[in-house]
């Protein structure tokens, strides 16, 4: 039998100290909806578990005066859904986070955990990429920031350095005329994993797109920021040709694999279809067409 130490630090410094002291044998626990499953499957056998839910900063949601948000890494999907303003500013990010698991899982699962799990199919990640969210990271050498799209390093891997913990996300202020959305293709209607996921964030002024970002999931080793798709939309009125150009950019960005969840051909085609559908929802939310 292996003994596992379970630690419940109340400050970030305490957590980082314990994490560093464990020299790689510890795992961070937020909701645990990935970690516990991996432990039960024998994929990971941690010597220590550090539960970060007792740290105020990591479980808080703060709205800045300029309308930007900070979301703690361990905030659950259910807690975020209950926030009075977050879902109005970022409906696409919220709907993506609220797609992680079942209703019961929503009470525990967090965007921080979803990102750290490193899955290219994580639902919250393409929406966060589209939103231009920044990850706040703290480790033995202090605090640093990374754009969400720079965080994953490959399936199951991240660019965290040893001893680093994700503190949370910052999301930028929303200009008027902005909207975002997330859609995923799953064979079932729920309780499934994305075959393709697309997040889109748009800002429109007088019917013209002034800002656009597209995040694409489950079609490459990591979630992608598809800059060409955003560029195809910016300056357009979301006319069919511009949207098709963005869809083509998404298809071109795909580097998927054939696996039990989908084929290369299928994933590539679906990336374009979902881009169109996601843009339409984001535009409607932005108050455009």
């Amino acid at each position, binding site marked *: 039998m292996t003994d596992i130490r379970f630690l419940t630090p109340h400050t970030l410094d305490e957590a980082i100290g314990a994490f560093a002291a464990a020299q790689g044998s510890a795992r961070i626990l937020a909701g645990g909806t990935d970690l516990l499953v991996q432990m039960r499957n024998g994929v990971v056998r941690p010597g220590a578990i550090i539960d970060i839910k007792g740290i105020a900063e990591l479980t808080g949601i703060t709205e800045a005066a300029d309308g930007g948000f900070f979301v703690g890494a361990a905030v659950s999907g259910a807690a975020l859904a209950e926030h009075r303003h977050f879902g109005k500013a970022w409906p696409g990010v919220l709907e993506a986070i609220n797609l992680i698991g079942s209703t019961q899982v929503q009470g525990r699962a967090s965007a921080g955990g979803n990102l750290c799990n490193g899955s290219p199919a994580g639902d919250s990640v393409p929406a966060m990429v589209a939103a231009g969210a920044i990850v706040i990271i703290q480790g033995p050498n202090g605090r640093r920031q990374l754009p969400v799209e720079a965080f994953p390093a490959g399936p199951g891997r991240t660019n965290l350095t040893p001893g680093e913990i994700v503190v949370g996300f910052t999301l930028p202020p929303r200009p008027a005329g902005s909207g975002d959305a997330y859609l995923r293709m799953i064979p079932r209607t729920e309780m*499934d994993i994305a075959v393709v996921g697309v997040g889109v964030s748009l800002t429109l002024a007088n019917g013209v797109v002034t800002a656009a970002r597209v995040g694409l999931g489950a079609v490459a080793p990591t979630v992608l920021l598809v800059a060409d798709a955003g560029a195809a939309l910016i300056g357009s009125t979301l006319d069919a040709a511009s949207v098709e150009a963005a869809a083509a950019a998404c298809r071109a960005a795909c580097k998927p694999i054939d696996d039990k969840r989908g084929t290369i051909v*299928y994933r590539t085609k679906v990336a374009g*279809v979902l881009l169109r559908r996601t843009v339409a929802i984001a535009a409607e939310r932005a108050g455009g067409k």
Partner: protein
Amino acid sequence: MDAIDNKWIGSRTIRPDGADKVTGRAGYSADNAMPGMIWARILRSPHPHANIRSINTAKAAALPGVKAVITAADLVEFPLDKPVMLGIQDMRWMSRNILAREKVLFHGHPVAAVAAISEEIADAACRLIEVEYEVLPHAIEIEDAIAPGAPILHDFIRHEGASSNIASTMVNKLGDIEAGFAAADIIIERSFTTRPVHQGYLEPQACTVSCTADGKVTIWSSSQGQFMVRAMTSLLTGIPQSSIRAIPAEIGGGFGAKTIVYLEPIAVVLSRKTGRPVKMVMNRDEVFRATGPTSGSMSTVKIGAKKDGTIVAAQGTFYIQAGCLPGGPVRGPVGCSFAPYEIANVLSVGYDVVSNRSKVAAYRAPGAPLGAYAAESVIDELAEALKIDPLELRLKNTARKGTKAAYGATFGDVTFKETIEAIKHHPHYSAPLDHAPAEGVRRGRGVASGFWYNAGGESSAQLNITEDGNVTVTTGHPDVGGSRASIANVAAELLGIDHSRVSVLIGDTASIGFSNLTGGSRVTFASAIVVTQSAEKVITQLRERAAKIWKIDPEAVAWANGEAFPAGANAGQFPPLSLKELAAKANEMGGPIGAGTQLTTTGADPGFATHVVDVEVDIELGIVRVLRYTAAQDVGRALHPSYVEGQIQGGVVQGIGWALSEEYLYDKQGRLDNASFLDYRMPVCSDVPMIEPVVLELPNPKHPQGVRGAGEAPLVPPLAAISNAIYDALGKRFYSLPMSPPKVLAVLEG
């Protein structure tokens, strides 16, 4: 018995297992524990096909905490050349399935088992067992297993004089097939493939067993037959049945798969070796990898008809996966595919094909859905070619009283026509359907029918009057589909007492007479017969007691509404005697009141079903959703309508999964690649609409309440019904399952 006069039969009484299941109290297999209990785990093969050269268990046995290690050498050996049958199961294969003997035959095949003081130590010990394998080439798919030069799984299998993976051939024949096709104006022939699908029960296989110093064995496990558990454990361990008591736990789904054992004999041998109670629980990976599923198939169906729609010839060729050992459900497609129809010339041939997959287990109407998928799809094409409504084509050819089926039966009353007419006249069939309701969306409607044999067989029941005048009924069948609730309704009806005064229990193998499996849609049929006979005996006893008290002839005593009363004016004037009053006087008037019946029941009649379904296809993503589903079935008599409706709805949902999303996927190394509920895509609640059952009650004249059986026929039509609906939506035919989004999109674009 006229339904109108019934108070309890046909009523929706509160289910006896409901409160326990809703509150988490129900005792499933894995819930049992005993003092001094140890845990066992299984070492499984890392290869899909290999000879076992040697197994060295020394290091595992030496690990602290390990109590025993066993291999196939610790089970009874069944020589390959001599069948030992228990029902349809051959113990040569059952033994080699639960622990590999000469070779491993699939990735996950059990090789050895360890009992230790914890599951973790047992797992660690499994990793210390050294097995020397001679790895062999493997074959997973049917086409690979029957191809020339295919790796041969079993040297003892011969087909047409040569080594083969075709373990057996089954032929059903009627008339002259060549002459039949020669007389046809139109012939349609198509080939189909389906993938293996798992029964998908939520409760994994588990057991706790105790072998005591005097050699007596007690087994707690859930199954579809505690007597099957006892018999197979006895055969595989050599312990006589009289020394084994199998206690049925509450069952969390079986759907046919729990009609064989995987763990119990292993746990018994480990308990006998260690003197400790032993518990085993499979995890979900093991359930998917090494239990069930049902077969994948390759079929060709050819049907010939006259211009007026009269079907004159039907031919089916069905290759059915057996898994790694012989015994696939060949009888299902061979016998059922054409059985709903009166066809003069039939040739139906099935092949049992072994390959390097887990041995298949029964799944609701074993094999019949595969055959109906092929046959009912071709009938849909035939209707289209002849420009005849598909239901009218079926009506024109329906089997009737006296029709001879190719599988051998001559039908008595046939109620297939009624199921077709029920769908034809249902508002669903004539409801408007917009085939293109929006851009990128298409809708379609399809129909299909199905047949299942149903069954009788051995059943036992004991009905006792308690000292306080209430009733206990014990039967020998695990309740997977509402048999306790149905039996309570029957007992209350016959005795004329309030339903709440009847408790129905499932006895263990030492407390009730032999009862065959819960399977074949037989249990409500068979147990209602033995309970009816037991109740009639008890009523006779009650009348005799009243006669004795009143000092009149028992013939002059009648029983109704839970009371004995004088049968007529000539019998005398006595106030009625209630069940409670008679029970109170039982001791002084002749002793305890109760009666049992043990019987091989007969008179089962086939079940027929006809379904209609509307689907919607997202033509950009290839996703098919079921919008509306109506399923008509003749059940004879619905003793408890809620359960019958649940059977129909459940069967249809399993059919939706089979048609659209479920499949076993293997990697190139011959390993199952989707052994979890995440990637083995069964439908979830939000994937299916409310399914409307149309329950027809055309009583079976050979049954006291008119029961036919309900559980299996609902899974026969859905595969073809959904495929036919997708054709109606898209104008493209599909010939392989599942019709998953990538496949639908590929067909749309190809």
